């Protein structure tokens, strides 16, 4: 089956620093989403980005579908950015089944 690999697994930043999270996937996908999971377990939608580039405030994401990877950029990080970031993909022939990576745990220190 498809493999979804996220890197790095853990990241510690000082407040104000920038970071890049990576998601590699092993097959063609028709859905790619980035989520932030808060300490209470809620998955918060960040981007729906099967291809191209999107920006939302301090966050932006780029998916290069032909090369099977996606990047999430966090600029001027804040302590509230702490948590686990997940990438999830869905295959063309498997409907809406999302396959998640193992996540990147981000800790932003004041």
């Amino acid at each position: 089956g498809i493999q979804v690999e996220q890197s790095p697994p853990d990241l510690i930043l000082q407040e104000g620093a920038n970071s890049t999270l990576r998601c590699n996937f092993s097959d063609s996908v028709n859905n790619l989403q980035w989520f932030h999971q808060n300490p209470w377990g809620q998955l918060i939608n960040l981007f729906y980005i099967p291809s191209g580039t999107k920006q939302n405030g301090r966050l932006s994401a780029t998916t290069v579908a032909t090369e099977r990877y996606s990047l999430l950029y966090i600029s001027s990080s804040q302590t509230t950015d702490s948590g686990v970031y997940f990438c999830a993909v869905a295959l063309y022939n498997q409907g809406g089944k999302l396959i998640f990576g193992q996540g990147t745990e981000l800790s932003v220190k004041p």
Partner: protein
Amino acid sequence: DAGVTQSPTHLIKTRGQQVTLRCSPKSGHDTVSWYQQALGQGPQFIFQYYEEEERQRGNFPDRFSGHQFPNYSSELNVNALLLGDSALYLCASSFSTGGEQYFGPGTRLTVT
């Protein structure tokens, strides 16, 4: 615009018991998917419901079953609970034509 809601928030059950979790989709969505998230792992797909039928299923035993109602809400049932069923159970909703999935706050199940 109401988002995805789930109940209950927390649940403690004993091995061998049965449990029912509930989910109401985001307004306008007609498809509901269920995921299990063990501690320290990414969510794993259990199954998806559309038009009151199971459309897709992940690698979970038959002890896990579900139902979708005419108003698109859904239930997840787990029979003969095992300690390993302790996890966060997440419900997601979407349009049947695909696109972005939105998740509820989850139900944290503890099996003792």
